[in-house]
């Protein structure tokens, strides 16, 4: 079925038509055979070849008929010059007809005299020659035969004396439709509708003539547009020869008529169509071909951007002089990446705004020379060139310059600084930012946290909110203090008496201190360490619970100082919790069993103290917080001089001023969705938020929270996989990167 359907859908007429060029050669060859057979009758007895002759003439006639039929169909496809196709068709039919007459004559002995036969043959041959030539002209073009023929022969063949100029592409390259259309008229219409011939009394080289066939603004009412837009096989289509206009051309004509059929450049000369003076155009062509230049001509202004960066080999500076004729049009020039040699020469660029010399070998002398020649320069790119401090002066005095790029050059920091001072509005890009470009301090928050119930201390990076990734972890026993040291090491404890400093990259212990042995006067004395701190000088502060003192030791354990503490209810486990050095060098100690925060000087004098109440009234909300005690865990001196206190089983946080007045507090249930349990560490961040350790709160409650001064929860940490219900200590990094 499908094969049949395909057959049915085949355009048989078209197919047969396409066979014309094939079968057309049969009658030609066979006619030659007839001539040969006919001439044989001169040497042979005519009877011997008569049968052959008759058959051959008939066959020739039939083949001619086939060729004619196929040719008719091919002609219907359209697209051929109408004069040629007309004559080709009818002469071909005549040729076939003459052959059939010849065949009838050949079959009829009484008519078949030699003279008649020669006359018919001659007529057929003549018709064939003319028809064939017309066919060849349509297929191969008018000048096919004559182009390479000897002049005499060409003349005999009727070659035109003067060649018609080949269609120029100039018009296509330049802007307006009017120019395209007028150029089109010149190449396709003037031959018959111009100064020499006025077929149909029409000439298209005068505004009046054009007006007679064009209604400005309305293509459909314009005879000219109707005639060029007819079907390609329409007898009336224009132009009749050389094929119909391209769609692009027809559209251009349409737009031109719509746009008012402007014929301003009446004097249609190549100069009018070619906006660019010939010498400029040639020069630009030469730049492209000889120097591999990319030349961009900006619309309207005609300004030129000349990019010589893509050329190969060394660039002779004196070649810039070649630009002289167009130098006043050049607004941008690039020699980026080129090896430049020699002197520039006399050229100057009065309107040059951007000069790109980056990655070239341009030195001070070259750049100075260019600056002299470019009085209006705005942007100068010199990155990775050979310029030195010696160029700074010239740059500073280039009045119009707005931006200079000096990254990757030898210019000293001093020269850059002085340039910036001299010309504060000049943008000097030298890439200095690069050095510390991506020191991302903080970044996603890092959290150091420890839980003795799961025997783990871990440093984590929170790659996404609620998604901490472990960077390092270490096994511990008891713990009540931990630190990230400036170099990145972690200072923590693995038991109440063992302090260690570990490099988290390698997990190597780089320092350790055993409080049960070192600096112990009384062997067997019970001591617990619940706080420690690395001092800026490298020594370590250690709070000893039991002996109730604070000592400072250097790296090898040697005792530097010892400060006695005041304890009302001595207990080796409960004497102290967190101890922090204040900005004034005093120690601020959270005395858990006493429920008091005391500040000591080095000699052990209490210089400030605050008794934590079991219940308090929030100064803002007036709400009363009822704690289960006042076993404070931490007291931290803030920058504003206040003290921030994590109240332990007080289930809240207090900020008290030096006078001991509560100025801010967090109560047990102040935060939506959070119930504060044993409040341990407190940390005031740079943005004013407060991070609170919420120990023993149970699963389902966050272990660490961050709240705003308005007590809005902005961040929480809840990880009961790594940690359990005794996450007592934590520290979060200040994520300060970016920021205004």
């Amino acid at each position, binding site marked *: 079925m499908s094969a049949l359907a395909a057959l049915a859908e085949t355009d048989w007429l078209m197919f047969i038509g396409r066979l014309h060029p094939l079968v057309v050669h049969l009658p030609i060859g066979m006619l030659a055979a007839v001539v040969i057979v006919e001439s044989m009758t001169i040497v042979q007895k005519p009877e011997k070849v008569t049968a052959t002759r008759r058959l051959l003439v008939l066959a020739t006639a039939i083949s001619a008929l086939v060729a004619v039929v196929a040719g008719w169909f091919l002609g219907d496809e359209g697209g051929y010059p109408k004069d040629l196709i007309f004559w080709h068709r009818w002469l071909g039919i005549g040729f076939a007809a003459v052959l059939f007459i010849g065949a009838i004559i050949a079959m009829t002995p009484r008519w078949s005299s030699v003279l008649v036969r020669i006359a018919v043959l001659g007529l057929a041959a003549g018709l064939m020659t003319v028809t064939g030539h017309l066919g060849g002209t349509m297929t191969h073009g008018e000048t096919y035969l004559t182009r390479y023929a000897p002049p005499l022969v060409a003349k005999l063949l009727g070659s035109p004396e003067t060649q018609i100029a080949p269609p120029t592409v100039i018009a296509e390259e330049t802007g307006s439709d009017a120019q395209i259309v007028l150029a089109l008229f010149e190449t396709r219409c003037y031959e018959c509708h111009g100064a020499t011939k006025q077929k149909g009394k029409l000439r298209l080289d005068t505004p009046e003539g054009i007006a007679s066939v064009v209604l400005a603004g309305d293509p459909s009412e314009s005879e000219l547009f109707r005639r060029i837009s007819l079907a390609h096989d329409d007898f009336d289509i224009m132009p009749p020869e050389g094929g119909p206009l391209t*769609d692009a051309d027809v559209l251009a004509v349409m737009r031109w008529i719509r746009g008012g059929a402007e014929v301003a450049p009446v004097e249609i000369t190549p100069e009018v169509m070619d906006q660019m003076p010939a010498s400029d155009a040639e020069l630009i062509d030469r730049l492209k071909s000889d120097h591999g230049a*990319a030349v961009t001509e*900006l619309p309207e202004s005609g300004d030129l951007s000349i990019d010589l960066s893509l050329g190969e080999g060394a660039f002779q500076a004196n070649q810039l002089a070649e630009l002289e004729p167009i130098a006043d049009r050049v607004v941008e020039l690039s020699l980026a990446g080129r090896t430049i040699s020699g002197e520039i020469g006399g050229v100057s660029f009065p309107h040059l705004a951007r000069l790109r010399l980056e990655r070239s070998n341009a030195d001070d002398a070259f750049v100075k020379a260019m600056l002299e020649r470019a009085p209006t320069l705005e*942007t100068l790119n010199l990155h990775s060139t050979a310029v030195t401090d010696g160029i700074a002066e010239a740059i500073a005095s280039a009045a119009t310059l707005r931006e200079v*790029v000096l990254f990757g050059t030898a210019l000293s920091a001093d020269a850059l600084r002085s340039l910036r001072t001299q010309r504060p509005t000049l943008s000097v890009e030298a890439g200095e930012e690069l050095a510390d470009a991506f020191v991302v301090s903080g970044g996603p928050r890092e959290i150091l946290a420890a839980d003795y119930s799961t025997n783990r201390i871990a440093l984590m990076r929170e790659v996404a909110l609620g998604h901490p990734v472990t960077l390092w972890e270490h096994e511990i026993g008891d713990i009540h203090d931990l630190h990230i040291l400036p170099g990145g090491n972690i200072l923590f404890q693995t038991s109440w008496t063992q302090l260690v400093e570990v490099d988290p990259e390698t997990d190597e212990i780089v320092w350790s201190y055993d409080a049960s042995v070192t600096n112990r006067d009384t062997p067997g004395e019970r001591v617990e360490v619940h706080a420690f701190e690395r001092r800026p000088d490298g020594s370590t502060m250690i709070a000893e619970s039991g002996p109730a003192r604070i000592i400072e030791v250097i790296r090898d354990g040697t005792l530097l100082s010892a400060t006695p503490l005041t304890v009302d209810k001595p207990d080796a486990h409960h004497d102290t919790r967190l101890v922090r050095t204040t900005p004034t060098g005093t120690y601020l100690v959270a005395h858990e069993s006493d429920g008091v925060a005391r500040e000591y000087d080095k000699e052990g004098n209490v210089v400030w103290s605050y008794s934590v109440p079991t219940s308090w009234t929030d100064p803002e909300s007036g709400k009363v917080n009822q704690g289960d005690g006042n076993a404070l865990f931490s007291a931290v001196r803030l920058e504003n001089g206040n003290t921030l206190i994590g109240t332990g089983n007080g289930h809240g946080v207090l900020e008290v001023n030096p006078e001991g007045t509560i100025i801010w507090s967090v109560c047990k249930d102040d935060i939506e969705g959070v119930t504060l349990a044993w409040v341990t560490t407190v940390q005031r961040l740079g943005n004013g938020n407060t991070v609170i350790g919420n120990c023993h709160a149970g699963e389902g409650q966050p272990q660490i929270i961050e709240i705003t001064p308005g007590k809005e929860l902005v961040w929480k940490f809840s990880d009961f996989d790594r940690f359990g219900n005794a996450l007592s200590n934590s520290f979060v990094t200040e994520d300060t990167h970016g920021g205004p």
Partner: protein
Amino acid sequence: MSGHNEHFCGRTRREFLWEAAGGFTSVALAGLLGNTWLAGQARAADGISANPMHAIDPKRFLTHAPKAKSVIFLFMYGGPSQVDTFDFKPELHKNDGKTIDIPTFGRQGKRAGGRVVGPKWKFRPYGQCGKMVSDLFPHLGQCVDDIAFIHSMFAESPVHGSALLNMNTGRIISGHPSLGSWANYGLGSVNENLPGYVVMLDETGGPINGAKNWTSGFMPASYQGVQLRSEGVPILDLSTPEHLQGGVQRKLLDRLRMANQEHAAKRAGNHELQSRINQFELAYRMQSAAPEAVDLSRESRETLELYGLDQPETQKFGKKCLMARRLVERGVRFIQVYSGGGHNDDNWDAHGDLVLNHTRHAGRTDRPVAGLLKDLKQRGLLDETLVVWGGEFGRQPTAEYAEGTGRDHNSWGFTMWMAGGGIKGGISVGQTDELGAKAVQDRFHVKNLHATILHLMGMDPNGLTYFFNGLDEKLVGVEGAEPIRQILA
């Protein structure tokens, strides 16, 4: 007398061989031209008039001085989540985990509401402009003063294949030329040794639809994107065969050119023939130009580190970004670099675990992209190079599944950004609703993005046309589109 008969057909042996060889070369030329030049002669749709392509001079489409000479389009394939990157939505954070009514349209179809997935990253202000950027992009955050964010993008399709075509070709159906093809068609190529349109894919593979995303569609194939590889041979099928090493190929080409020039001399004015002859030379020149363009051995250690080439995580994308800068320096007009390829979490398509997915892809691209911007800037190239960042769409504020953080596609509202070449830095235009689900203020279609890019390249987006099938086809469609004027410097 006898001397005459010594020569075959009146020719010396030398003459005969020379002529025969000359003729043979023409046969070779015919073969070489066969698929290209002869095809270039093909007729337009009406079957008769010449292919309009050949009448077009690129300069025709330059309507004003270009601000951007080159474009680097960083394509985040898969669809990055706007609310986790640059579109700061505090309300979304507050509603984390709550089930709310909010219409969405993704691969799961249209839904009336769902469980809110709060932004998984903290946002913080950066730069003079104080732009809020999530912790996914700590390096890029430092570049915000050079960036214009468009928060109110919308596209025509919420599925990858058609959305990619939308973003690359302006249509959701195949067969249309891509943005880079339009750019090169409109303006022509600058560097004769390199293609004007280069595409670099992710090491995990290409995006869905493959080459349709950098096709020249109904334009001649010379406008299509050329794939440049960051590892190994930069351009496939371009290396010199072994038996042609050592100058043999050059000799061959020289001889071919001689024959070609002779051939062309008799056909003066045949621009197509001349241009095709040039194409063979281009292929030859590209053999040396392409490796040079991607050779990073002369880049300083500082530069390599700037792009993150010292870190395994950022090495691959960083290399492509650095190659992009080198191509810009060499006049390549349009470069597209894909982040993400293949399937699932190999690209930004975070249906399952948003955190895993976006941490991975932002981690691989943050530093390289920031490095690219900083490097372009310090080299004075940023003001004439337009950098475009974005995916084919964004993601929904609600969860795709009952469990987990995965977000479905969202073409109703997403964020893209542009920097450099004529862009006003440090600004954000357009808004999505308070949960980031849908563009609500100053909405911009993909077409507006395309129009902006064409405008910055010096063209009128509504005047850049290609005649095909009886229509003056445009990248921005027959209705046209205006550039996003708020972000123009």
